[in-house]
């Protein structure tokens, strides 16, 4: 029976609908058609990202990073049904806590990214909008731009995305990214050094740097 589902969030590429799976509260992430791009490209991007996202979420869980549980993947409708998390986005939390708490959260972010990277999981869109604090754990969502890649370049780019997100969204707290790197180093140890050096290189490649 088709029930009209409520859209609880509309992102850039997907709608999040409130749903149920068996008796669990769930959300459906549905990648919507984009009329601005041609059909071939639209299909390629939507199916590739849906597939990749489901795969990477499972890999992330195996590496010890909290992610929502996947209940179902429907490639025909470009939809992933997953666990509903009651928590709040880090984006909304980080600017409203004490420096001590902020430091703790940022270190946790860094530790989680390190766990992903030590298993060659590249998230592809690490921003504080894509992290949910729930059950005292930071859950990572939105792996649609991710990939499995062991290269230092890919890991550096992954961290660079977060650095830019901090500069644009949490500019009042310039220490955030340093705390993230502290957490990152605490897990990856000496392996972290070449990756962190890479970030500098990526910054310099940009315009007017």
């Amino acid at each position, binding site marked *: 029976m088709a029930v009209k589902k409520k859209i609880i969030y509309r992102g850039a590429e997907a709608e999040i609908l409130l749903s149920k799976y068996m008796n669990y509260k769930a959300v459906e992430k549905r990648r919507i058609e*984009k*009329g*601005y791009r041609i059909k071939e*490209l639209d299909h*390629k991007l939507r199916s590739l990202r849906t597939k990749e996202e489901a795969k990477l979420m499972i890999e992330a869980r195996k590496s010890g990073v909290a992610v929502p549980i996947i209940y179902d993947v429907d490639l025909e409708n470009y939809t992933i049904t997953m666990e509903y998390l009651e928590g709040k986005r880090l984006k909304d939390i980080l600017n409203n806590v004490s420096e001590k708490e902020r430091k703790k959260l940022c270190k946790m972010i860094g530790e989680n990214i390190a766990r992903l990277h030590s298993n060659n999981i590249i998230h592809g869109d690490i921003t504080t909008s894509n992290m949910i604090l729930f059950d005292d754990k930071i859950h990572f969502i939105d792996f649609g731009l991710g990939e499995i890649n062991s290269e230092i370049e890919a890991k550096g780019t992954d961290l660079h*995305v977060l650095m*830019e997100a901090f500069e644009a969204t949490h500019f009042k707290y310039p220490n955030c990214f340093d705390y993230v790197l502290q957490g990152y180093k605490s897990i990856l140890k000496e392996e972290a050094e070449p990756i962190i050096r890479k970030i500098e290189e990526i910054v310099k490649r*940009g315009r007017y*740097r």
Partner: protein
Amino acid sequence: MICLGIEGTAHTIGVGIVEDVDEKCKVLANVIKMYQPKEGGIHPREAANHHANFIANLVIDAIKKANIDKKEIDLIAFSKGPGLGPCLRTAATAARALSLTLDKPIVGVNHCVAHIEIGRGTTGCEDPVLLYVSGANTQTIAFAEGKYRVFGETLDIGIGNMLDKFGRIIGLEFPCGPKIEKLAEKGDKYIDLPYSIKGMDVAFSGLLTAAEKTVRDKKHRIEDICYSIQETAFAALAEITERAMAHTEKNEVLLGGGVTCNKRLREMVKTMAKERKARFYVPRNDLCVDNGAMIAWNGILMYKSGIKMNIKETTIDQRYRTDMVDVKWR
């Protein structure tokens, strides 16, 4: 208040004269001259020589077109950066000379910010995400707490540079964008090319390399390759714009920069905006490309917000980033 603005960051030297009428921008004159390299890309020194040759006549021409007396000018503005050093210095020198001879104040303007402000001043948008696409620049910019912040940008080359480099390979003359657009209109077969989005950023070098290889392989028509380049690159631009809009929760999108003259890109961003029920704005063509009017208008905003510069402070900055500007007028 009437301001004369001089633009000279890259290939274009431009003089614009604008007046503020009820906080909106009225363009009285806007004239440009564009340097055309004989071959290859922009040669900075030759571009600067070109600008030096034309600037005096452009100033005279603009004053005539504006139908004002030069004594009516209240303020001089110039492009402080970012851009090519020799070009910036030439425009700044002309601005200083005018400021001293007319005995009027002078301000240096950030070129990228000027692209947003001319949109806000002439199209009716209030708080947009700007997709700024030109030869060198590819950025999504939005206002947040006192500054225009860059939310997404190219990690390697600008979209216009990418099109120019590709155009050169297939024997087109600078600027190649409009010629590629014409060829693309005759293409209809999509060739799979790398589509590179990293978070809210975009990258084009992989796409360029793959497109070059497709040309060498000689299996496809040039028209189809041009079509595929446009479809892939512009879809990525529409996507980073949408991502910036979703992230900043803004409901207006504004286009700026020379590449926005491309009809397919306009259409794509317009469709994107429509689908998310956002409003779409694009200034008229002569205000999208590099021009003096946008510099003049941003100059007025700065001056009225209390920003004053003495001649010693009118230095140029080749790497003057969008997010370095304190936006006191908002």
